[in-house]
């Protein structure tokens, strides 16, 4: 079936798709977004159910291979210690993300110049700064101004409580003279714009039934629909089509029943995330692009970066009440973020004070981990004498781009429409392993300085091993750059090979930094939208 052509076709209604639509909405162009998932309403979030935590291991798992919902696509991660996690719906992975909202730093955009590794970005912090600022307002970010780890900026809302856990760890960092700061979060600390403030329920990964967490189905899509943007759900794009001139002409997509439709467009914007985007490009083969669309550099799918994590847990004398408050982060130390030549690794890591798991999660080995604690008398001891008293620090490392870490197409596995599924080949880098060793020792030091009685090896996933379901951040698989021979898109998201095709998600990251990526993904999408508007007269030249 052929539909009416549109001016702008966005694929994916998650964080980046919503942000670019927000930027382009004032152009009055006819914008259509195709999203394979559906709307999900707060009444459907499990945190209102009696057995709410069980959803984490079933229909609301962050792992699409566990969920297996009709809108999900399987991911073969057998050749990777880390498996990508996501959510496929209006809102994308902001439905189940945790809303931790640190920015990247000026040095993150200059890794080659400063440290001789990876590549410099074609954009810098100063260019993105106004877009970070604008985006923080749209999302309703809470935080404390004056963080000396960044050029000055002020989050629009006051910080959320750091709680007993945050206060305790802060004192430890102060004793050591190390940096820490209350975390910026895309979570409301006060009622705003029809959304209620956070009630400290701790189930941000199960969807926020309070609406306090900024998921783009709440922050963006209602306004976009009112402004005339069209959103078609249950629409899974199979392939981006190109004409004889090598320009994108539109897409083929399946509706909920599997029926194939053609949708034509003047411009196509891909926002399917760091796994979904290379998958779609590699599935879009044609005589012009036999190795996948926009892939003359061979870089589509290459340089996959996660943020590998490990962590350390301390047992304190008093209950830490770590289950109270937003899941992701209470405070963040960036003492070891920047390169220090006296260390045996380049770049750095953050120490995140994630809140501590609930009893179910703790007993099963921690969030995203399948390693149940022992049974019997030892079980009783851990649940009674350890669990209530623990606080942990997670070591979140920068992942360097390496070409062998890649998304390719699985030769056998497909989604329910028969579209080849992505296959992940990934190895944790040597530099990262050195960071783990350094970071775990520093985390233990900080916990002891904060008053921990001992470091425990059974810390709810924080046992020095890489977390398997920690592929939350997916970056680098269609990277930006000035040189078409080594990059997929230019400095404002336009594909070198196809001048009316843009990519706006984490695929275009050149490096990963050591912070959660979504504030940068959205700032970048707003910047790309702005560049499209600025260059509109010569957009496809």
């Amino acid at each position: 079936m052929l539909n009416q052509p549109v001016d702008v076709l966005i694929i994916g209604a998650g964080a980046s798709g919503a942000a670019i639509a927000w930027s382009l909405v004032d152009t009055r162009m006819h914008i259509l977004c195709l999203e394979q998932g559906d709307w999900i309403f707060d009444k459907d979030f499990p945190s209102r159910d009696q057995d709410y935590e069980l959803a984490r291991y079933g229909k609301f798992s962050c792992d699409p291979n566990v969920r297996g919902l009709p809108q999900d696509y399987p991911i073969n991660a057998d050749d990777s210690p880390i498996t990508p996690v996501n959510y496929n719906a209006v809102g994308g992975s902001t439905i189940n993300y945790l809303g931790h909202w640190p920015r990247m730093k000026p040095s993150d955009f200059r890794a080659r110049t400063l440290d001789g590794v990876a590549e410099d970005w074609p954009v810098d912090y100063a260019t993105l700064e106004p877009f970070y600022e604008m985006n923080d307002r749209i999302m309703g970010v809470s935080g404390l101004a004056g963080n000396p780890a960044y050029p000055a900026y002020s989050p629009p809302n006051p910080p959320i409580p750091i709680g007993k856990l945050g206060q305790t760890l802060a004192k430890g960092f102060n004793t050591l003279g190390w940096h820490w700061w209350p975390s910026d979060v895309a979570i409301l600390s006060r009622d705003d714009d029809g959304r209620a403030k956070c009630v400290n329920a701790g189930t941000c990964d199960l969807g926020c039934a309070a609406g306090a967490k900024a998921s783009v189905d709440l922050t963006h899509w209602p306004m976009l629909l009112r402004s005339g943007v069209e959103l078609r759900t249950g629409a899974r794009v199979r392939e981006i089509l190109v004409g004889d001139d090598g320009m994108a002409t539109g897409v083929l997509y399946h509706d909920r029943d599997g029926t194939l439709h053609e949708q034509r467009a003047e411009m196509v914007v891909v926002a399917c995330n760091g796994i979904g985007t290379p998958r779609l490009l590699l599935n879009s083969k044609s005589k012009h692009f036999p190795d996948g669309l926009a892939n003359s550099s061979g870089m589509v799918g290459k340089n996959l970066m996660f943020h590998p994590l490990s962590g350390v847990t301390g047992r304190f004398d008093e209950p830490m009440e770590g289950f109270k408050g937003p899941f992701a982060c209470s405070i963040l130390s960036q003492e070891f973020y920047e390169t220090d030549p006296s260390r045996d690794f380049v770049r750095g890591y953050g120490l995140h004070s994630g809140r501590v798991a609930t009893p179910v999660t703790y007993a099963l080995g921690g969030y995203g981990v399948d390693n149940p604690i022992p049974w019997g008398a030892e079980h009783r001891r851990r649940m009674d004498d350890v669990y209530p008293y623990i606080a942990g620090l997670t070591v979140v490392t920068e992942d360097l781009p390496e070409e062998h870490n890649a998304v390719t197409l699985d030769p056998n596995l497909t989604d329910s429409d028969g579209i080849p599924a992505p296959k992940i080949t990934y190895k944790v880098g040597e530099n990262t392993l050195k960071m783990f060793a350094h970071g775990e020792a520093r985390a233990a030091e900080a916990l002891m300085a904060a008053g921990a009685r001992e470091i425990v090896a059974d810390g709810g996933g924080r046992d020095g091993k890489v977390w398997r379901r920690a592929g939350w951040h997916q970056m680098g698989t269609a990277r930006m750059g000035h040189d078409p021979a080594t990059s997929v898109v230019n400095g404002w998201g336009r594909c070198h090979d196809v001048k009316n095709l843009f990519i706006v998600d984490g695929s275009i990251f050149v490096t990963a930094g050591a912070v959660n990526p979504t504030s940068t993904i959205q700032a970048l999408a707003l910047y790309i939208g702005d560049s499209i508007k600025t260059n509109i007269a010569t957009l496809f030249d």
Partner: protein
Amino acid sequence: MPEHATPFWSADERRLIDSILDQIIPASADGRVPAAGSLGVADFVAERVSEDAGYQAVVSDGLALAAGLDGINTATLERLEITAPEFFAVLLPLVYKGYYSRPDTRPLFGLSAKPVHPDGYDVPGEPAELINALTAPVRTRGNCFRDTPDGRR
């Protein structure tokens, strides 16, 4: 301990699994925290096992081996765990999920019995003076990010 058969376990099997569950999560010495078998967690396990043919095979093989043990206690189950690790690999996650996701066990570990939304937990915001005092040493040390060579932040 419930004295009834479940949809696919006989009364004998049910007694056996209840006694295994009592060893997996034993009661606390003061009796405040009940054991998993006496709480009826086997109902949850039965429901989940009935949905999965793979689980059914592993659990029924495990129960057959357990029935031949010289009683159910820590020592006999530790030996069974060595000979039938897959039985424990299936059973432990199910028992832990079934036990700790209940409204009657959550409060024993400090959590609310109710679903967390809409009420959540009361965590008072820190007064500005406290946050100022805590962050003062960090601010005093000054900026801790690197400038870039072109001076563009």
